[in-house]
């Protein structure tokens, strides 16, 4: 048992962090939100150049063959930068789903799509059949979708009926998607496999949302800490007041206690996915860990947002501060793909008759 990341894992996260520090600054986000800069195509190319779109793609398809446990730190970095492009949905969810379809022997354009997705030539998003709103559709060329969880379809964006919605996160417009009528499933006659694939996609979406929220929370704490050191009232930095210090320290505690939960969930998910194929049932405890990760990270990010705004005073409430971009991304990630109450309700179900055993000898078995 070892709760650390390898040097390779931390170094690639650091490299991504540095790249995003260059190409995804607060000023870049603002330019995008104000519409003074069209798109971020250059940014996607930079990410593709270091192979990120194919991070979880199989090596046979040109990917890096990484696992969820490797990707979690990368997702955290994209969160820290509030990256507008759907790298996490693409690399963390769509590519592994395409790979799983390919491994199941599905043709129908899947191997070609996988190859183009791994290289980053085509951006793919995942439209879970039970989700009303999907982010990142504007940059995507393809979408994995389904009329229900019993089927999976691969659609070009121009085949879908899209209803774009202005959304709370100004950098990630949400879209309501309707499939073209009569679309065939890629897995005819195998609804259980389709269901398994959607379940896996959802688990990945949640654990990587959790990772992004860790990054966002850390970013917001960082912004607030530096402001608290600069802003002076009553003749001294506001950060010299215990009230401010304690606020920020409280967020830090929440954040540090959310981290291992998220990392462990990613590692457990990787192990569980390797142990069984898409049709295999997901152990209840693994699911619970993923839910718990999203809950813990959402709580930390929510508190970070609320605290960072508070520490800034009125300027924290203004559009002119970049802080709002990070706060709004955190709120969106917390609300989408299962919000706080849905997580808690599902954990309750799993605990009471859902397959998680309780009792003194059970508490600390993985």
């Amino acid at each position, binding site marked *: 048992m070892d709760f650390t990341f390898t040097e390779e894992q931390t170094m690639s996260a650091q490299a991504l962090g540095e790249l995003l520090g260059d190409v995804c600054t607060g000023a870049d986000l603002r330019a995008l939100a104000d519409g003074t800069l069209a798109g971020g195509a250059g940014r996607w190319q930079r990410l593709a150049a270091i192979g990120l779109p194919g991070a979880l793609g199989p090596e046979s398809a040109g990917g890096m063959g990484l696992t969820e446990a490797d990707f979690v730190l990368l997702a955290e970095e994209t969160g820290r930068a509030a990256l507008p492009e759907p790298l996490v949905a693409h690399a963390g969810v769509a590519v592994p789903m395409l790979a799983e379809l390919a491994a199941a022997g599905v043709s129908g354009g899947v191997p070609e799509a996988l190859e183009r997705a791994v290289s980053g030539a085509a951006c793919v998003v995942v439209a879970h059949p039970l989700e*009303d709103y999907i982010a990142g559709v504007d940059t995507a060329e393809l979408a994995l979708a389904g009329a229900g969880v019993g089927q999976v379809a691969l659609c070009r964006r121009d085949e879908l009926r899209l209803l774009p919605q202005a959304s709370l996160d100004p950098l990630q417009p949400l879209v309501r998607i309707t499939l073209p009528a009569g679309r065939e499933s890629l897995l005819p006659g195998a609804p259980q496999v389709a269901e398994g694939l959607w379940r896996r996609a959802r688990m990945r979406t949640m654990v990587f949302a959790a990772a992004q929220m860790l990054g966002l929370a850390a970013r917001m704490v960082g912004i607030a800490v530096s402001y608290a050191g600069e802003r002076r009232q009553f003749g001294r930095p506001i950060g*010299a007041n215990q009230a401010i210090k304690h606020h920020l320290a409280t967020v830090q505690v929440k954040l540090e206690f959310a981290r291992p939960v998220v990392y462990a969930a990613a590692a457990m998910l990787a192990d569980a996915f390797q142990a069984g194929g898409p049709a295999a049932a997901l152990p209840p405890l693994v699911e619970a860990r993923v839910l718990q990760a999203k809950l813990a990270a959402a709580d930390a990010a929510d508190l970070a947002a609320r605290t960072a705004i*508070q520490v800034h005073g*009125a300027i924290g409430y203004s559009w002119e501060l970049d802080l709002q971009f990070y706060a709004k991304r955190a709120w969106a990630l917390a609300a*989408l793909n299962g919000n706080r109450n849905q997580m*808690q309700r599902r954990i309750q179900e799993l605990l009471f008759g859902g397959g998680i055993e309780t009792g003194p000898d059970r508490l600390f078995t993985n």
Partner: protein
Amino acid sequence: MKLGFTLAEEAFRHECAAWLEEQLSGPFRAIRGVTGLVACVEQRLEWERALGRARWSVIGWPARYGGRDASLAEQVIFAEEYARAGAPGRMGHLGVELAGPTILQFGTDAQRERFLPKIAAGEEFWCQGYSEPNAGSDLASVRTRARLEHGPDGDEWVIDGQKTWTSLAQFAQWIFVVCRSEEGSRGPAGLSYLLVPMQQKGVTIRPIRQITGEEEFNEIFFDGARTRAGYCVGRPGDGWKVAMGTLAFERGVSTLAQQMRFRNEFDQLVAAARANGTARDPLIRQRIAEAWIGLRIMRYSALRMLSGGREGALPPEALTYKIYWASWRRRLGELAMDVLGPAGEIARAEPYEFDDLPRMFLASRSDTIYAGTNEIQRNIIAERALGLPREPRGDR
């Protein structure tokens, strides 16, 4: 203690309810239920004039200035009926709730005659010039300067400096400005409270956008702006006392109307939870029940606080009121988002306009900041109500 209302008071309730219903189902139908701070401005300004004409604008004021000398109970009743009828947020609230009461208490007769009737009639609107870029919580460090200049048409104050976060300045004819009138003075000493016309060459406004997307507050630049020597409230140099008096009004009767708005927001939240089924979720039900309890506590506390106070001087329990409501509403905003789920992430209209509940969530991020931050409120409670030693302060 008497918590119910008398027959006469119930008759008064009937009278206001009838008038509100007639207006809001008739000429002001279009703005019924409007809660946006800068929405439907023209119609809401007209609404202020209608309130004024019917003498419903400032019922607690003396009749000679356009009020009705209404009792506390009557003001409670009016606030309740106003909210129940879905009447729109008051565009005039900074004049009605802050400038007016301050002038009434601290002003000269001439100032009262000049300003109060216009506020009551909805003919002149006000904004609050306290905060500056470097003077937020530490209001006493304001740097905007005023000097008295002798002129052929009488003496005038000449004002230079900058204010910021000034709500609704774009619709105001007047601003009350806390500024430094004694050169070289520091802290609360040497400040004056001036009433300054907005429409003049020396005043420039730049709107500031909020995280809600609305442009409700502004920056204001004073560059040789002028006002009459007689438009100083309180003695020159005594502005701090007046400025603090205004803050007390902010925590006073105006909280009644605010509570009723909260009541409407709470009802909307419950309706949303019923509509999308989250009302069946025990976790949501529990938080809704907590919010309801909090609202009741707020109401009793406000009534106790207002009953016990003398004019302008609220009892000590008033010190605890701001942090309570601000924290309550901030939580209500978070609950609203958990009730709405993904639907709360969606804007109602391009480019960035939200339905009431998501907007309330965003707006409630500011409740714990304006009118004294939560941290400052806690310091006040600890130091003034409990008498704990004062925090060390640096050199300003």
